[in-house]
C-alpha cells in the first residue's frame, strides 16, 4: 500500500500582489524522493514555501512547472478529490455540522463502501484514536486535542497512499503537543503510510522524522536525517535554523588542523593550507572552565534554565559565543564578568562548504 512520492523540479510562481506583472516564487525547483513508508518533514520559517509544496502534493495548488508522482503515476493533472492523499489541516477543518462519527466516516461514505465495512473500519480507527466514547458528540464539544484526533482519524481511516500534515500541532499547548507528536509517529510507523509533514518547529521535526527537508525562501537547503542536518548542516541557514550555532572564521593549517584566531584546533579536512573556512560550533560542544583551556573569555550573560545553563561569552580576540553547559545545578553558575576558558569539543566541529 505504501507508495513512494517523487517531486521533480517543482516550481510554484505567484503573481505578485504588490506589483502587477511581477511574480514571486513560492517554490523554486524542488526535488525530493520520499521512500515508501517514510516520514519526511518540510521544515522552515513561515513563508519558506513548505505549505505551498504540501498543497501542491495535495492538489490544492497548481504547480507552475515540474512533476509530482505517487509511485510511477503522475499526479499533476489529477483532481484533489482523486489523489488518495489524506491531509490533516492546521485548523483541523472538522465539519462543524457533523458528529465526530460522521466526520470520521465522511470519506468512506463518499466511496460508497458497505455499511458493514464502514462500521468495521470506523470502530477500529475510533479505538486507535481514543474517540470511541465520544463518537456521537458534536465537534464543538471537543477539546483541541480531541479535535486533533478527529482530524487524524478522518485521514487515516481512508488508508491513503500518502498522508499529509500541515502544521497539525501548532494550535495545541506545549504538553499536548509533545504527546500528540509521539502518537502521530507511532501510528504512522504502525500503519506504514508514506507521510509528508510540514512544521516550523525544529524540535517537532527532529523528533518525528525519518528525514528532514529544510527550506528557506522557496529553496530546499538540505535534505537529511535529523542527525545529519544537525551535525553536518549544509548551509549557514540550516545551522542557525536547527538548534543554535556559533560560526568561527578559521584558516586551514594542514589536513589535521585549523587556526582560529591563532589558536590551533584539530579538525580533519580536505582543504588546502591557507584556505579560509567557516566552522559551525554548537553551544553544547563547548566546555567552560575557570581552570584553563583553549580560548580565554569573559562571561557577559548567564541564564539558569534547569537542565542547562545558557551563557553568552566574549572570547578574547574572536567575538561572542553561545555556550550551553549541562547540569549547572551541580557546579554552580559562572557569574557575568568572571574570566573563563572555553574549549571546543574536537568531534563537534563542522565546516560549511
Amino acid at each position, binding site marked *: 500500500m505504501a507508495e513512494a512520492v517523487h517531486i521533480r523540479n517543482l516550481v510554484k510562481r505567484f503573481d505578485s500582489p504588490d506589483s502587477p506583472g511581477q511574480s514571486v516564487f513560492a517554490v523554486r525547483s524542488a526535488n525530493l524522493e520520499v521512500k515508501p513508508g517514510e516520514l519526511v518533514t518540510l521544515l522552515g520559517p513561515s513563508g519558506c514555501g513548505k505549505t505551498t509544496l504540501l498543497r501542491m502534493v495535495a492538489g*490544492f495548488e497548481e504547480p507552475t512547472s515540474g512533476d509530482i508522482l505517487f509511485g510511477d503515476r503522475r499526479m499533476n493533472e489529477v*483532481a484533489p478529490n482523486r489523489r488518495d492523499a489524506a491531509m490533516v489541516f492546521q*485548523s483541523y*477543518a472538522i465539519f*462543524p455540522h457533523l458528529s465526530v462519527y460522521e466526520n470520521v466516516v465522511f470519506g468512506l461514505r463518499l466511496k460508497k463502501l458497505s455499511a458493514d465495512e464502514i462500521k468495521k473500519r470506523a470502530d477500529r480507527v475510533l479505538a486507535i484514536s481514543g474517540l470511541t466514547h465520544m463518537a*456521537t458528540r*458534536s465537534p464543538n464539544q471537543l477539546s483541541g486535542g480531541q479535535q486533533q484526533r478527529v482530524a487524524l482519524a478522518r485521514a487515516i481511516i*481512508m488508508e491513503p497512499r500518502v498522508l499529509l500534515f500541515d502544521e497539525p500541532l501548532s494550535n495545541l499547548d506545549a504538553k499536548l503537543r509533545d504527546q500528540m507528536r509521539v502518537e502521530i509517529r507511532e501510528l504512522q510507523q504502525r500503519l506504514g503510510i508514506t507521510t509528508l509533514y510540514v512544521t516550523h518547529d525544529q524540535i517537532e521535526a527532529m523528533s518525528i522524522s525519518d528525514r528532514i527537508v529544510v527550506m528557506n525562501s522557496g529553496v530546499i537547503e538540505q535534505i537529511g536525517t535529523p542527525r545529519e542536518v544537525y551535525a553536518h548542516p549544509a548551509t549557514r541557514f540550516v545551522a542557525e535554523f536547527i538548534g543554535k550555532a556559533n560560526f568561527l572564521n578559521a584558516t586551514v593549517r594542514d589536513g589535521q588542523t585549523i587556526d582560529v584566531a591563532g589558536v590551533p584546533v584539530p579538525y580533519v579536512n580536505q582543504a588546502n593550507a591557507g584556505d579560509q573556512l567557516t566552522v559551525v560550533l554548537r553551544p553544547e560542544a563547548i566546555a567552560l572552565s575557570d581552570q584553563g583551556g583553549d580560548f580565554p573569555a569573559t562571561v557577559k550573560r548567564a541564564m539558569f534554565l534547569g537542565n542547562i545553563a545558557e551563557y553568552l561569552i566574549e572570547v578574547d580576540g574572536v567575538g561572542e559565543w553561545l555556550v550551553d553547559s549541562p547540569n549547572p545545578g551541580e557546579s554552580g553558575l559562572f557569574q557575568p564578568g568572571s574570566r573563563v576558558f572555553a574549549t571546543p569539543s574536537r568531534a563537534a566541529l563542522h565546516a560549511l562548504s
Partner: protein
Amino acid sequence: MFATARSQIRVLARDPILLALVVVIFAAILIFVVYPLAMVFLASLQDRSQWTLANYALIGERRLYRNALWNSLSVGALVGFIGVIIGYIAAFVLTRLDVPGKRLLHYLMIVPIISPPFVSAVSIVFLFGNNGLITRQLLGLMDFSIYGFHGVVWSQIFTFAPIAYLSLRGVLASISPTLEDAALNIGASRWQVFRKVTFPLSLPGVASAFLVVFIESMADFGNPLVLAGAAFPMLAPQAYLEITGSFNLPRGAMLSVILLLPSITAFAIQRYWIAKRQYVTVTGKPTASTSKVVSGPVKSFLYGLVLLFSAIVILFYGVIFVGAFTQVWGFNYTPTLNHFAYVFNVGFDTVKDTLLIAIITTPISGIFGMLVAFLVVRRTFPGKSALEFGSILSFAVPGTVVGIGYVLAFNQQPLILTGTLTILVLCFVFRYVPVGIQSGIAVLRQIDPSIEEAAQNLGASALTTFRKVTLPLIAPAFFSALVYAFVRAMTAISAAIFLVSANWNLMTVQILNQVGSGRLGVAAAYSVVVIALVLVAIIIINAIVVRMTRHMNMVRF
C-alpha cells in the same frame, strides 16, 4: 495574466461539472441580465428603425419628461434624507439604548419590508384620500388632495425607512461603546461624543443607507402609480405609461435609461467608494453595552419617535385589515366578507398563479444565489469579478427597466417567452438573487476554506462538497435568500407588470388594478392575503432549513 487564466482554466477543466456550472451561469447572466439591458439601450436610440438621439432630445423639449426626471430625483433625495433620519434614530434606540420592548419594535420596524411595497399607498388613500377616514370623515376637509408630491413622499418614507433602519442597525451595533466611554472619560460632553465619535464612525453607513433608499425610491413604481396623480409625473410610471398607454417603446426605453443612470451611479458610489471607507468591521463579538451618550430626556424623546413610527405601522396595517372587511370605505362601514369572496372566486386564478410562481422561484433563486456565492468566494476562474458584478448588477437596475428589457428581449426570436410563466420566474430569479448572493458571500467569507478542502481531500467532488459541506454551513444565508426570494416574488410589481398576461397574472398587479378602478376593499383583501401567505411561507421555509441542517447533524450508524 494570460498564463494565469490558462492555468485557471486547466484547474477548472479537471472538474467538468464545475466548468459546466461556470459556463452556464455566465451564459445565464449574459442572456437574462445583460442582454435585456442592452436591448433597452438600443431601443432608446431608435425611432421607426432609424438610429437617432431624438428620444433623448425630448427630455429638453418636453416639460412632462423634464418634470418626471426632476420629480423622481427630488423625491428620491428627500425620501433618502428623511428615511435615513428615521432609520438612524430607530437603529440607535434599538441597538444602543436600554428601552423596553426592543424585540417587538424591531419586528414592527421591518414589517413594511415584507409586505407589498404599496400597501402604505393604499393605507394613505384609505386615511387621507378623497373619502379618507381622517381627511374627510374626521376633519371634514373637502378640497384636500393627498395626490402628488406629498402623498408619494409620505408613502415612500414609510416603505423605505425600514431598509435604512436595517442597514444602519448593523453599522451602529458594530461601533464599540468603549469608544464612546473613552471619549467621555477624557472629558467630552455627550453631544461632543456623538458629534465627534459616534456619528463620524457611522457616516459611511449613513451615506450607504441614503444611497440604497435613493435607489429604491427612484425605482419605486407602485406608490407613484397610486399616489402621484397626473399632475405629478415621475419616471418609472411615466415609462410604463409610454409603453402601455401610447405604445411608444422607444420613449419608454429612453425614460428607463434616464431612470437607470442615477441608480447605477448611486450603486457604484455605494459599492466601490463607500464600502471601502467603512471604519467598523464585524469582529465576531457583538458588544452588549448600552450607550451613555444620551441623557434621560433625550432618550425618552427618541424612544417616543420610534414608538410613533411603530404606531403608524400598526395603524396602516390595521386600516388595510379593517378595509378588507368593510363594505365601501368612506360610505358604508358594514362588515363584510364580500371582498375576500371576490378574491377567492373571481381572483382565485391570480392567487394560484402568484403562489405557483413564488414557489418555483424560491428554491431556484436560493440555490443559484448560494452557488454563485460559493464560486465567487471559493474558486478562481477567468472573469470571476465580471461574473460577480453581473450577478449583483440587477440590484441597482429599476424594475421598470428590467420589465421593458424583458419585453424587448424575449418578444422575438430566438427566445420568445412573453406571456409565459417562465419569463416571470426568470425575471424574479435574476432580479432578486443579488441579495442572496451577497449574504452567501458574507457568511462564506467567515468559514475556514480548509473545511471544504478537507471534504475534497477525502474524495468529494466540487458539487458534493457544495451539497454536503458548504450548503449546511451557510444555512442562515440560504434561509434569508429563500425568504427574500419568496417575499419579492409575492410582492414585486415594477418589472412584473410588463410581463403578466391573461394566462399568468399576479396579485400585486390585481391590487393596482383594483385601486385604479376604485375598489379599495378588494385591493385591501388581496393585500391581506399576500401578507398572510408571506408569513406562512417564512414559517415553512424556516422549518425546512432547520430540518435540513438538523438532519445532516444526525449520526447514522
